[in-house]
Every structure is written in C-alpha cells, then in structure tokens.
C-alpha cells in the first residue's frame, strides 16, 4: 500500500437542524487504498462521503485533497467520482451515452470516446449492451453501468455509497469480488460506504467503524475483528459476549465471579473493563471440567454450527459449537487466554453483549436504508 495521503479530513463537523451528524472527525485516506466506512444508519458515514464528493459543505474543519484545501471546490471540479446507491443512471440516455456522458462534457473526440467506452464496457463485462435502454437492465447490470460511468474519467478517488445494497445476496457476492478486482487493476482509491460488516471485512484494506457521528476505530479488518476498541465495535463486527469485569493485574482478569488468564496488560489495578469473548472461541466441555457452568436456554441450528444460549450468573452467553447440546442441559465452558480480549470502559459499555433479549432487532435497525441519512 502506498503511504501517500490523498484525502485528509481534519476535525470535520456537520449538523443538520441542530442535530450533530459528524462530530469533529479526522480521517486520512491513502493512495490506492480500499477504505470502507462502516456503521449503522445515522452514524454519519454517507455524510462523510458526500463531504468528500462536494455535495455537502462541512460546518467546521478542512477537507484536503493532495494537501490542498478543497472545502469550497464545487463537485464538478473535483477529481472524485461517485457510484450512487440507486445508481442514478440517466434514464433518457442509453448505456453507451450514459458512460460517455463525462467525456462528452470534456469535448473529447468521438473516436476516443468510442475507444474508452468500449474499454469500460469490457472491464464491467457489458460488451454488446451499448444500445440498451438503461431502464430495461437488471439491477446488477445497472450497477456495472454506474461503475463504468464513474470510472471513465479516470478519477483519483472513487466514492461508492452502498452500491450493492439493492442487489440480492448471490449477486452481491459476485459484485464484491468484481469491485475488488477493478480496484486492484485500476489502482484507484476506493472509499466505500456500507452497513454490512461482512462486506466491509472481506473487501477492504482499511475499515473505519463509525457511530454517533464519531469514528470508533480505524484498522485492518483483522485488527477490527480481533482487537475491537470498545463495546460498540465488538458488537457491531460479528457476534460478541461482552461482560463486565475487573482487571486484577496484568494478564489477570475477573468476570462472572471467576478469574481468568488473558494476554492483555497495561490497565490500572482493579480497573473496571469490558471483556470480549467471541462465541466461536468458547469450548463446550463437561460441567466439572468447565471454568464456568450454566444451563442451556436454547439451541438453534445454523448450518455450520449450533448457536447455543447459556445462562451464567444471570448473563446470557452465546456460544457457537459444532457439537449438539440439549436445552436445559448443564454444560461447562472453557475459555483459552487468547480468546479473551479486554477493552476499556466506554460510552457503549453495558449497551451491548448480552443475549437475553437476543433477536434480530439491531440487525433490522441497521438495515434501514441510508436514504434517511441524506437529507440536507
């Protein structure tokens, strides 16, 4: 990865009607990077994207492009292009004309336009679709046209606003690969907005987790997953059991009335912390061999594994195991030291992590389309 900064946001703030959408965020985007802004609806990720595109002017802070401040540069003068959530193809133009749109504005010769449009069509696998009416294309095809249209001007940065949100699951997986390939081949910086954590983890070089108008964590997908910085990140990325605990000493933590070994250090003595244990890192053992014991509340078959909810000290744990256990059975849990991740207390502590009212509620809430976030 190139280490040259292409876009910098410096304490950028934005509020609509007195409601804070972005709360002084700082973000550096490097050249040739695939960076994803990840967060639930209303976290400010789309607004961040629109500030970079130039559709929204920040109340505060600077937007730098190649080290030059571009706060007041209108969108049509920025070498940044956008793939919109619902594609925003021009319905009165056919596929060829949609893709050629930007070139025609620049008075490029017809021969060159033809060459470049064909090149783009080849890249997005739409050769032979030139004369098609864009309204008659499938969602995936429209998506490709939108990408080709945005890339034809060879922008330095491509902004993608939930581009796969409207596609079905299978198509989405294919497009994820295709997008990643395009990004690698063209070497253009991609800034990608999504609320789908799996998409973010599988495609990105860097993931930026956002919530409540603030950046919660920036890091590689593995960092984000394995070393979440607070309860929000831990909960939002994958499944987590987040338990109140106390750091007794370096490498020693106490929760659920038990003392555990762990790999974390540098906390104050007896500091209250959040301990994160991923459901797949817990081993189910005989009750007498377990570090913790509990009664199985429910078991759900998920295909690859069973999802087991166990109550221990009034806290409902989620465990993923390939072995079946029966409900009401007493089981023991075994946790390796490297399965425990310790986080400092944050504003999100106590809000996530317990599975007593486990349902898809949160999932649903974060699935609300970004549409609502976009009002200005």
């Amino acid at each position, binding site marked *: 990865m190139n280490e040259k900064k292409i876009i910098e946001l410096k304490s950028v703030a934005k509020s609509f009607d007195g409601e804070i959408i972005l709360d002084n965020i700082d973000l550096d985007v490097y050249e040739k990077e695939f960076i994803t802004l990840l967060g639930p609806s209303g976290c400010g990720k789309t607004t961040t994207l629109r500030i970079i595109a130039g559709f929204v002017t920040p109340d505060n802070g600077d937007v730098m492009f190649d080290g030059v401040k571009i706060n007041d540069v209108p969108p049509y003068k920025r070498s940044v292009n*956008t793939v919109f959530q619902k594609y925003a193809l021009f319905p009165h133009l056919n596929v060829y004309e949609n893709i050629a749109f930007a070139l025609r504005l620049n008075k490029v010769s017809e021969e060159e336009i033809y060459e470049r449009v064909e090149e783009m069509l080849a890249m997005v696998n739409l050769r032979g679709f030139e004369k098609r009416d864009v309204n008659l294309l499938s969602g995936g095809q429209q998506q490709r046209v939108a990408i080709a249209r945005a890339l034809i001007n060879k922008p330095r940065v491509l902004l993608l606003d939930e581009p796969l949100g409207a596609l079905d699951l299978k198509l989405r997986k294919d497009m994820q690969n295709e997008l990643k390939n395009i990004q690698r081949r063209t070497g253009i910086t991609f800034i990608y907005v999504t609320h789908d954590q799996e998409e973010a983890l599988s495609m990105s070089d860097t993931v930026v987790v956002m919530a409540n108008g603030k950046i919660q964590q920036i890091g590689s997908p593995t960092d984000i997953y394995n070393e979440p910085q607070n309860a929000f990140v831990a909960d939002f990325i994958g499944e987590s059991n987040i338990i109140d605990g106390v750091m007794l000493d370096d490498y020693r933590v106490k929760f659920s009335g038990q003392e555990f070994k762990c790999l974390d250090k540098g906390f104050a003595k007896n500091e209250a912390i959040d301990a994160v244990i991923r459901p797949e890192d817990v081993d189910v053992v005989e009750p007498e061999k377990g570090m913790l014991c509990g009664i199985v509340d429910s078991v759900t078959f998920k295909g690859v594994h069973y999802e087991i909810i166990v109550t221990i000290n009034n*806290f409902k744990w989620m465990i993923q195991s390939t072995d079946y256990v029966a409900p009401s059975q007493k089981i023991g849990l075994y946790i390796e030291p490297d399965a425990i991740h310790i986080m400092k207390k944050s504003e999100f502590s106590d809000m996530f992590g317990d599975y007593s*009212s486990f349902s898809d509620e949160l999932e649903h809430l974060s699935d609300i389309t970004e549409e*609502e976030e976009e009002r200005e």
Partner: protein
Amino acid sequence: MKRKTAGNIYTVLVFIFLYMPIAVLILFSFNSSSSTGRFDGFSLRWYKELFSDAATLEALKNTLILAVLSAAIATVIGTLAAYGINKIKNKHLKNGITSVTNVPMMNPEIVTGISMMLLFVFVGGLVNSKTVLGFGTVLIAHVTFNLPYVILSVMPKFKQMDKHLPEAALDLGCTPVQSFLKVELPQILPGIISGFIMAFTLSLDDFVISYFTVGSGFETLPIRIYSMTKKRVTPDMYALSTLIFVAILVLLILSNISGDKEKKTLTLKQKKRRKIVLVSTFSVIAAITLGLFIGTSFAEVVTVNVYNWGEYISDGSEDEDGVASVDTNKEFEKYYSEYLSEQYGRKVKVKVNYTTYASNEDLYAKLKAGAGGYDVIIPSDYMIERLIKEELIQPIASREEITNVIKNYDYLLRAPSEGKTLTKEEAEIFQKPFYDNGDDVYSVMYTYGVIGIVYNADHVSEEDIGGWDLLWNEKYSGKILQFNNARDAFGTAMYKLGVNVNDPTAEQWQACLNELIKQKPIVQSYVMDEVFNKMESGEAWIAPYYVGDALSMIYQAEQRGINLDFYYPTDENGETVTNVFADAMCIPVDVSEEQKTHAIAYIDFMLSVDEKYGAPAIANAEYIYYASPNRLVYTNPDYLATLDGDEEIIYEPMSNINELFDKYAYRNLSSQNLSTLNSNWEALKVESSSFNGTIYVISAIIAAAIIGYIVFITVRKRHRRKLYWEQSPTVGTKKSSSDSSADSLSDTVTIAIKRSKSKKD
C-alpha cells in the same frame, strides 16, 4: 356475463351523454341550410363562409397568437417556478407555496378577471395611460392563469425524478446549468409538454378573463362568439367550433402520448418516432404563429377602433342564397385610405379594429373602468343619456356645425305619413331624439326598432291578438315565453297596465310585480336567445321580442312549416303601445382630436349610400334587419325590394315615431327606480314554485348525506384507533424522514438499555 353487458351499456350511455352535443354540433356544421332543427343535406358551405369571414378569422388568429405566446411564457416561468419550489428545503414553506400557487385554479374566473382589470386600469392610471388594456394585458392575464397549471404538471416530474440525478451530473463534471439542461430537463420534459398543451387549450377557450382584460382593437374568438347574441349564432360558428374541437382533440391525444405512462416498455425507436411527431407538431404551430405575426406586423398608419354589438354590421358573410353581403368595414378601409392618401399626398393604410360587446351594461362597465381605446361605440338610447350625463362621451359637433362635420347627417329624417305634413321638429326626430337634444350633438342614430309579439298563427286565434294581454291569456298556458331581463319583462306589464315605464309610482311598481306574478304560472320559461328555437320548433306559441329578430324567426319557422306571425301591441284605442329603442354612434370622451376626425369619417361613412363603396348604409340595414333612420336608405327601391314586404312591419312604427319615443322609450332610470326594478325582478324570480322547492330539498338531502358520511367515517376511524393509539409505544409507529435517524439511534439505545437492565437482574 350479465354484469359485463350492463357495464358496457353504462359506458356507452356515459359516452353518449358526453359526446352527443358535440356530435350534433359537428353534424349541423355540415348542414346545407342554416336551420337548427332540420338537416337539409351535406354541404361545406359554412366552412367556406367561415374562411371568408375576415373578422372571425382575425379573432381566430388573435386567439392562436395569444394561446401560443401565453402558453410558452407560462411554461418557461412555470417550469422555473417548479424547479425553485422543488429546491425548497423547508417542508412547511414548500407546502405553503404549492398551495398558494394552486389557489388561482380554484378561484372563480370572474374574480381573477375583475381583479386583473382593476389592477391594469389602476396601474394605467398611475402612468397616466387611458388605453392600458389591450393585447399586452390579456397576455399577462393569460400567463397568470396558465401558470398554476404548468406548475401543477411539472412539479410531479421533479418529484418523480431520482434526486440523485442532478448530483450524478455534477459529479461527472456538469456545472449546475449544464446539469439542468442535460439531465433534469429531459426528465421533466413530458410534464413541460403537457403543461404547455394544457395552458394552450385553456388560453384558447378562455372567455371570462379575456373579456375583462381585453381592450380595444383586440378580440379573441370566444369573445366574438359570445357577443353574437344580439342576433344569433350563425352556423359558420358550428364549423369553427368543430374545427376547434378537432384541433383540441389532436392536441390532447398528443399530450397523452407525450406522458410517460408506458415509457419503460417503449423501444428507443418508438421514442424517436414519437419525438419526431411531437417536434413536427410544435414546429407547425410555431410556424403558423410566426407567419401570423409577420402578416400583422406591417405598420398601419391609421387605425379606427370600433366597439359594437355582435352581429350588428354587414360583414361580408353569405346569406341564405349564398350571396355575399358587403363588408362595410373593409369598404371603409378602402374608401378612407384613398381619401387620406389623396389628402396627405402619400400612401396611407387604414385599419378598422372592430370588436363587439353583448350588452349596454358591459359597454358601460368598460368605459366606466377607464378601459378606453375605442373611437366609435354604438350604445342604445337610455345608455347614451347616461353616458352624456356622466361625461363618458364627447360632443361630435355643435348642432349648427353638425351638418358640416357629418355630411349625410341631414338625411336622418322621418318620412311624412300619408296626407299629413310634419313640423320641422317632428321630421327631425332622428336628429334630436329624447336622449340627445341639447346644443351639442353627441350621437348619430344607427338603427331603431320596436318590441312586438310573435305568435304561432296555427294555434293562436285571431281574436286574441292585438294587445299585451295575449301574454296573460290563460288559454295558452304553458306556451307563453317572457323576457329574461328585468327591464323588458317589467316593460310588458307596464305597457299592459298603461304605466309610465320610466317613473312608476310605488303602487304602480307593486301592481306590475303582481301582474308578472300572476303571469308566472302560465309562462313556459323566461328566455333570451332560446326564444328562436322554442318558437321556430313550435314548442312555444307566444313571445315578445325585438322586430328584427322576430322577422328572422318567422322566416326560419316557415322553412320548417310553422306559421309564425307578428304584431305591435296596441291599447284599446288602437294606438301602438310598445317599446321603441334606438342605437346610435358616439365617440368616447378620451378620444384625441386626431382620432376624432377618423371616428367622424367612419360615422359619416356608415350613413353613406355611395355605390362605389357598396352603399354601406343600405348594406347594414339589409343585414341587421332593423329600421334605418336614414331617408336615403328607406326610400331606396332596391333595398325595399330585398325586404320583400317586411318593410311594412319594420317601418310601421315610423308613422307615429315621435309619440313612441316620447311616451314609451326606456329612459335612464333614477337610482331609486333602478333598485326597485332589481329587487322586484328578484322577488319575481324567487316567487316560490314547486320546482324551486324540490331543488332545495334535493340539495339539502345531498348535503346532509355528505355530512353524515363524513361524520360516520370520522367516528369509525376514532373507534378503531382507540385501542392501540394510546397504548402502543411510539417505537416504529412513525418513521418520517425528518426524524428517523434520531429515532433509530434512540431506539438502539432504548433497546440496549432494556437489555442491560435485564442483565443486571
């Protein structure tokens, strides 16, 4: 199956109901005679006539220019307005502005029209212009009332448009202007086109607003047709209406095609073809308009603006036998241009701007409002009296000078009746009528006429005719018609009772009212123009009407085998007791000295019988079929020959015209009498009848049913809501876009808190 048949029958019935009138109109536009009751064979005669009727074509041209211009301007302004409104972020402001722009659509046209006229005249007063009303003002008015419709049809297109499209355009390098032209405009184009077409058709057939805001020298087609009511609508108007209907139909079909309901299923090829059709239609319309403009833009040196009753001048149209009449305005243009050219020693073009009105009161309203610009007007006797009093018309000349000014003035003379020499005063009744007998001459008489009674000779027996009491004869109950205007209707009662029509006492007013109330049960209906059809078809037998129209009625009825006859009512002494009226040419007070010389030339020309210019006075008398006060006319043997016996009826009142004018002409009523007349007329009209009662009851039932239904719906809704409305938490009940992100965030928190509570338990 049965239901389907019933449904089909119902549909057919609805269509018949909707399109029957137009079908009849189209049919009769191809009638070879002017009869409204019988189809005498297919002919294109009325179409031919229409295209030789210069005044109507002029009005049509004006209407088209006005419609295209106003629609185009309104479309541009309206589209920009819709663009702006759509950009407003504050929801309340946006809704507010949208509602405000919609108000003019709901507003009754009459309110818009009057307020516009008031505004224009007021502004005209500020800039000291008396002739502010004209093409410009009608254009502004039309643009104004077209605007909401354009906005209404463009706004939804903006709303439907993906709001990211303009952003996508900016993103790809468009400036905001380019984005509007290249991306937004193509999306809203169907809305713009249908807005334009809607504005065009609305402007094309607008009458009310045009009527109030139009000035002299500009007449639109609807105004022209409407003002033909003094005589009746000629069949070439059926031809014209047919053409307009077909044109509008084509436009509507085009506008529907241009709507994008099935856009998605169309191939690009079909779209292209449709585009070609649309573009070519519009270019044809634009080309015609442009052509008309160029045609009219040659500067006229002298213009005479004439404001007359509809169908009240010989206009070059063909008569029953296909012989074209003289177009007296054209002849004047020819004559006066020759005259002026000789005078000035250079070529001068003369143009008569001839426009029409429907009643004295309309004319008065225009003059009173200061809507000037007319050089010659032709009001009736009592109105002239009023105009002189209120100084709205100016003297043409002093009485000594008048014969020098109007050369043919001396021929306005009463004919001596047999064996009786007339005093000078008696002979000069047409020069010094009751309404204009001062030292200055304000008016030059154009025609005069008398009210008489038309009756069906097949049904009404000879012994019943003669007086006004025929209208009260119960033998003919249900077959009697009465005037549907206050002055004439009360006139019949006053003449019957021998009351002074211009200043009755309170008791006499009451007596007349009682008389009319007594008559009401036997009256078939109160009519004006409908009288023609009712009498010609034999539906009614007895009607009081004006002599010129009565003769035309008799002629028409004869064609249909119905035998009508006519008489002037007399009292028991055998003396004629009926209304006599005169229409005379006047010059409004705001006419400049220079324009006045042209106006005088026009007035003089209308008295002329110069064969070189088609003998205008005779041509007019033949055409309008009222009596001429001009001795050169009523002694002309050719003219008398064309009347073919009708001259006895038309000129009968001349034998005692002085007395008739003296005793029975309508004078300008005092304001007290005028208000008594109006209140009595209302009293007569609301005098309860079973019909009125039924209408009230039905309206009340409908209103009650609507209110009942609304109450029922409201109560049921409230009842259904009662259980869940207060008890359910607000989560998820409302997801309006303005606060949802805040909601969803707080929802997250709420749920999380619930969770952590349970964790602590």
